[in-house]
């Protein structure tokens, strides 16, 4: 079955994306700077992977571009939330199955009433990840089709992965 994937690309991707080589972090950075300019708040190469920071309003637009342009970041790998103290941060790890390069997208949101648009319309795989992040850190993913608790019981109070939620051996 070898080589089959190269002859039958998925409709989401351009045919040339399959033969294209992975781009270096700098090349991806340049492509994004060209397309979005100031909307990319900050970008940095961490461990040979590009990390970009965007605002919550621009998240959907940037992720749609990442998926549908020739960059072809079509595979959501991981999504998690981090309590950074003064703010909360959501980290999206995306990669390209076809071009085999990777990117990290980060969004900083305030601690009070944290809100971020759901990525479900772009990546269906964000579904359970977002539900988990929502219950663990108390973040609202606007537009999520099913915002119930996932791992915790429905009447659980508090947000376990926030730093002010202490375990019994921490207090």
């Amino acid at each position: 079955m070898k080589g089959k994937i190269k002859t039958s690309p998925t409709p989401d991707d351009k045919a040339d994306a399959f033969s294209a080589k992975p781009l270096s972090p700098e090349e991806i950075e340049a492509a994004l700077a060209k397309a979005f300019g100031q909307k990319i708040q900050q970008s940095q190469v961490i461990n040979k992977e590009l990390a970009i920071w965007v605002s919550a309003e621009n998240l959907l637009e940037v992720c749609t571009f990442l998926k549908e342009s020739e960059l072809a970041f079509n595979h959501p790998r991981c999504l998690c939330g981090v309590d950074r103290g003064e703010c909360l941060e959501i980290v999206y790890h995306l990669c390209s199955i076809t071009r085999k390069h990777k990117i990290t997208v980060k969004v900083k949101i305030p601690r009070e009433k944290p809100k971020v648009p759901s990525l479900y319309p772009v990546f269906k795989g964000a579904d359970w990840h977002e539900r988990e992040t929502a219950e663990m850190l108390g973040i609202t993913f606007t537009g999520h089709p099913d915002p119930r608790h996932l791992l915790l019981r429905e009447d659980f109070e508090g947000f376990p992965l926030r730093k002010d939620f202490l375990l019994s051996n921490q207090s």
Partner: protein
Amino acid sequence: MAIKTTQFLNMGPQHPSTHGVFRMMLELDGERVVMCQPHLGYLHRGIEKLAETRTYPQIIALTDRLHYANAFQNELTYCLAVESLLGIEVPKRAQYIRVMMAELSRMQNHMIFFGALGMDLGALTPFFYSFKDRETILDFMEEISGARLTFNYFRIGGVKEDLPEGILDRIVAFTQRLPKIVDEYEALLSGNEIFLSRMKGISVLSKELAVNLGITGPILRSTGIEYDIRKAEPYSSYEDFEFSVPVGTKGDNLDRYNLRLQEMRESNKIVRQAAERMPDGEICAKVPKVIKIDGEGYFRTETSVGEQGVYIIGAGDKTPYRIKFRSPAFVNLQILQYVLPGVLVADVIATFSTVDICMGEVDR
């Protein structure tokens, strides 16, 4: 107003085919599934929060407890992540031992899959065959690491102890036997008509949906996408070994089953190459006594289930600031909502079994 003719069936959480504690709400129209809503979290232990209060070497013991059949591979992912953040070069012998153990555990995971799948579909014999052979592998693991399930054998920088004398010869002898064992498995189940009728063309997953959902591992490859992290981003000397990546065509239950049997043959090749070419030398690199990490990184490996990722954020402390385990089964389980509508209620069990999950890993 039309009368609603569907009914709800609550399957689980203590259903024997759910491989743990998992509940599905099924909406049925006669015998056909209309809608499936999974409920999970019964085994949630808060490992990520717990890890924030443990030092880096202590967390290895926690990773064992994610998936009982994949413990070596989960340990490997975590150790690789810490090593790469610290810039530690692992000695070649330790890398080969790690690869050998990881592939042995892939083989025994697929043996559990084979036995459990047969049992879920009402064929008890395959279970006895596969668990007999799995016992041989567990005996090797016990001899090498001292434990049968929760090994705690890998260390940051290498492995805990060197291999016992003479074990490599016995592992090579086992790898010579394994192709025949897999032939036997295929003879037991693969041609059975009742089995085929519940596997062929059931619960088809499309390529586009698999990629969009972030599915990895055998399920992604069964849809026809050749993507394996061992090939795409080799780690721990995987580039030294010759093996091929089996790929399916249709993405149905049968493809997922066949693919895993083929993967056992490929893993067997890797184990044999590692055992035959085992280099001499150190088994553990020089590592600082107190491990402190400043910085962050996401690392991933290909386990038997799919992409196991570890995202570590260190703030210069002995304990991580935040650690995220991206477990493959958690993501792979999402296919149920998409592939189950339309299948017969009896085939729900077959489909669930071919997803090959362990709830401990899903709920963490």
